């Protein structure tokens, strides 16, 4: 990437400080990125003693969502942040803390609330039918003696998402506060933020959407860029949630882009989508189907790209660490830890790149929808 140099040059006095802060942040992040290996190395051998190490389960546990925020330790001795469970059943809303399951994810521990009984089976919450003691499945993995209530719990991912929200509010209210007080370019951390804001404006919004209309979409583009980036970076921290690597989160973000395209698409855009001018009539319906499919595939590709990139990064790191336990040898760590470190550093780049690409392609699609075509 070639960030636009002008804003940097214009605010030269601050850049030195900005470089310094950036250095500190990068060093700090790298240092933190090293921590999860220690955490795994300490946490997982205990599991290995009791049962055979299953890398798939370990990886799925780490990249999946959960009802409590587990940091380290096993069973009742583990350090887990309890999070509220919010369920919508046929008999109304039920809420309790996730700690009431006592870290059970095998559907054994039954929680009784409002005359209903719930179990947590692999982080899915089931409402047991009357008389059932634990959840049972048939061959096709259909549940036999329980029903699944609507689960609107504040899960680990929602909590991590809220953490990003708090960080963003602190960061950007700080920057806005600076701008309210004085007219000069900010220094230090605020300068980094402002450079990034200007990067989104000058490298993404302006060229893709056009000088006239870009201002309208700046709030979305800025919010989505910083949300994805900060969440990506937080996801690399030890014990953090894999928020942007969760398909539900990216589906939601993709839907925002789709909604913006559909709402802001102008007459030209719809004409070119549904009834392409300048081609024989019998081709028009065929092309309309293709165009509508393309319209839907664009945000789908966006959501899959983000989800797959982030999840793939986490899986690779976890697999490399998992190798130590699969091969049951500490010597492997000598090879797999540097590899994992390398991938983690790569993930720092990917974290930015995916945020950039999501924002860039969203801007591109929106720009296509609002572009004024020259009529021939």
């Amino acid at each position, binding site marked *: 990437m070639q960030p636009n140099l002008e804003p940097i040059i214009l605010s030269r006095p601050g850049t030195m400080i900005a470089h310094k802060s950036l250095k500190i942040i990068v060093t700090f992040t790298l240092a933190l990125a090293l921590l999860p290996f220690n955490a795994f190395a300490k946490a997982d051998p205990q599991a290995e003693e009791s049962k055979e190490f299953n890398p798939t389960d370990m990886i799925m546990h780490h990249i999946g969502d959960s009802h409590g925020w587990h940091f380290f330790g096993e069973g009742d001795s583990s350090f887990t942040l309890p999070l509220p469970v919010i369920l919508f059943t046929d008999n109304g809303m039920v809420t309790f803390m996730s700690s009431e399951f006592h870290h059970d994810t095998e559907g054994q521990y039954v929680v009784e609330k409002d005359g209903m009984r719930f179990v947590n089976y692999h982080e899915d919450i089931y409402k047991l039918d009357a008389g059932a003691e634990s959840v049972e499945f048939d061959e096709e993995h259909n549940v036999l003696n329980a029903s699944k209530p609507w689960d609107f719990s*504040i899960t680990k991912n929602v909590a991590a998402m809220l953490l990003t929200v708090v960080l963003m509010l602190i960061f*950007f*209210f700080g920057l*806005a506060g600076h701008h309210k007080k004085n*007219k000069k370019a900010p220094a230090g951390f605020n300068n980094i933020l402002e450079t990034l804001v200007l990067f989104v404006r000058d490298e993404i919004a302006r060229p893709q959407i056009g000088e006239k209309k870009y201002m309208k979409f700046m709030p979305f583009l*800025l919010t989505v860029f910083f949300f994805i980036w900060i969440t990506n970076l937080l996801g690399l921290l030890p014990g953090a949630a894999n928020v942007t690597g969760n398909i539900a989160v990216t589906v939601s973000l993709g839907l925002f882009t789709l909604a913006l395209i559909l709402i802001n698409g102008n007459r030209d855009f719809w004409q070119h989508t549904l009834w392409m001018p300048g081609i024989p009539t019998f081709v028009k319906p065929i092309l309309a189907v293709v165009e509508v499919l393309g319209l839907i595939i664009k945000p789908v590709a966006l959501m899959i790209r983000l989800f797959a990139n982030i999840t793939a990064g986490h899986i690779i790191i976890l697999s490399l660490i998992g190798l130590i336990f699969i091969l049951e040898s500490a010597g492997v760590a000598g090879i797999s830890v540097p590899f994992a470190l390398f991938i983690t550093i790569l993930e720092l780049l990917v974290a930015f790149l995916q945020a950039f690409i999501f924002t860039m392609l969203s801007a591109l699609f929106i720009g296509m929808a609002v572009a004024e075509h020259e009529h021939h």
Partner: protein
Amino acid sequence: MDLITPEVGLIFWQTIVFLILMLILAKFAWKPILGAVRTREESINEALVSAEDARKEMQNLKADNEKLLQEARAERDEMLKEARQLKEKMIAEAEGDAQEKANKIVAKAKESIEMEKRAAMADIKNQVATLSIEIAEKVIGKELSTEEKQHQMIDKMLNDATLN
């Protein structure tokens, strides 16, 4: 919790949270930040434009100064030239006057010398005449002491006169 089947709960929370975040940030952060950045860029542009203007004005002023200086220099040269000419003229005039005066003095001197000379000559003539007369009286007195001699003389003179 499956990897690739999105959960309704998470979609719901993400949508709500993101929407609220976007609205709050749009109102209280993005708008003031982008506004301030734009104002700053505009003021920088204005400053650049006015700096350019000032530079141009400076250049104009410099050119004006140069022109004025040149004019002044030309004027000075002109004045110097004039002064030199005047000086030469004055010198020439003075020389002429002096010559004339000298000539006049010389002429006057000559004239007065002439006059003196003439007066002296006249004086000498008078003196000579007086002397001559005195001498002549004395001579004549001696010569013409006798009657005879007187007649002789008169005759001689009459003869001369007739001849003339």
